């Protein structure tokens, strides 16, 4: 456990704010990459996810996309993109990789959120005379918000984790301490950096968790991720019936 004491000493050393690698700058960089990539991913993925969820078309795209993104090794993408655009443009390469890895989670969240809305609710809205656009923005989008936030949450965590690797293509971020620590065998720096990264990830996760909780409360008993109406058997909707026919 001595190593951890060293790491804490390293973290609290005044050198961390005045030295060549100030913590605040690195945390700022890390967060900046994360926010930028998250916004770009959301702009691409939310409209697409809503479209898929509302029309029920292109569902395979959502499933395949999230599967493929999981198989792609982030370090491999980061290194190959950096080589392709040149080390001088590593930032562009890194953001592109973060977006590629962030899109599928958000797409899945947006799509699953819309799909999880009870079809009878949607039919009721339609019967009341709502247009398809109104149904999407006034019924499906608000009710699906918790799942969308869940998607944004995993995308944010994925980006934070990948941004740790960005130090290896010459970008800053918090990964720089791990990278330096491993190559220079300065264990206090390496552990201190790792602790900071974990704290940052947990903090971002907590922010999204609170967001999800607030959204759930706001919509009352909306679609929840893990509790599909324990004591009610749901009749098959036409949508599900057509899925059944597909697989037969």
């Amino acid at each position, binding site marked *: 456990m001595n*190593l*951890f004491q060293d790491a804490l000493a390293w973290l609290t050393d005044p050198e961390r704010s005045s030295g060549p690698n100030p913590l605040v700058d690195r945390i700022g960089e890390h967060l900046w990459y994360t926010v930028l990539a998250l916004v770009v991913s959301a702009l691409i993925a939310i409209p697409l996810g809503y479209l898929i969820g509302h029309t029920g078309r292109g569902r395979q795209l*959502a*499933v395949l996309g*999230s599967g493929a993104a*999981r*198989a*792609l*090794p982030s*370090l*491999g*993408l980061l*290194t*190959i993109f*950096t*080589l392709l655009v040149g080390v001088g443009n590593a930032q562009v390469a890194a953001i592109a990789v973060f977006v590629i890895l962030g899109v*599928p*989670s958000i797409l*899945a969240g947006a799509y*699953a959120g819309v799909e*999880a809305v009870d079809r009878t609710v949607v039919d009721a809205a339609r019967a009341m005379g709502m247009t398809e656009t109104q149904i999407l923005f006034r019924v499906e989008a608000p009710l699906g918000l918790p799942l969308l936030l*869940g*998607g944004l949450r*995993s*995308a944010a*965590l*994925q980006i*934070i*984790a990948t941004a*740790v*690797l960005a130090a*290896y*293509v010459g970008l800053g971020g918090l*990964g720089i301490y*791990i990278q330096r620590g*491993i190559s220079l065998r300065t*264990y206090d720096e*390496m*552990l201190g*950096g*790792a*602790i900071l*990264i*974990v704290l940052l*990830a*947990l903090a971002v*996760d907590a922010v999204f968790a609170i967001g999800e909780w607030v959204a759930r409360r706001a919509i009352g008993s909306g679609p929840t*991720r*893990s509790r*599909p109406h*324990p*004591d009610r*058997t749901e009749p*098959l*909707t036409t949508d*599900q*019936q057509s899925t*059944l026919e597909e*697989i*037969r």
Partner: protein
Amino acid sequence: MNWVGANRDLIVELTLTHARLSLLPILIGFVVAVPLGAFAWRFRWARGLTLTVVGLLYTIPSLALFVLLPPIIGISFLSELNVTIALSIYAVALMTRSATEALESVDPDVRGAASAMGYSGWGRFWAVDLPLAGPVLLAGLRVVSVSTVSLVTVGVLVGSRNLGYLFLNGLQRGIVAEIATGIVMTVLIAVVFDLLLATAGRLVMPWTRGAGAGAGRTRRAARRVALTEGPT
């Protein structure tokens, strides 16, 4: 493509090592997480705690975990065990959540019917709950498998020898083909594992081919697990 031809032995060696390194965490994930998930599903009080703990574990970025783990469990930073244990933790964390969802996807009416036919708790678990949760369990295991294969590559940064070596080496030497080969082989392993799991699933659960009455519910749960559980 010259690079591939000249380095065929290295590629084969790294691919085999990579596949071997991926196997144990996936296996451990399944064996540990199913009882854990069943426990969380069965006892309400344990549920929140278990799911919160695995959720937090899963939040830790992989490279940070590779660095934090050795001093905690007292092994060398360069030990192969380090990567195996870290990836097993992720696999368990991911699979526990899927296992809980899988058991919850079982139609309560079917369970009620089984109880009425005289199944007791333990017998019903093996004969009714677990088989019916099978498709969703499989969906979760496939997610675990794919993300483990891809996460192994990060291990190269703490000295584990796997396909990730091609990324670092390719970057240093400026060989795009080398990195591309690493990516292609990683994806290939993931695809092969996935096909094996899907085939095994069909063999073990022949009933999933024809859709029964509860299929809509299970299918939706399986799709939700396949879509929304993701790696970090």
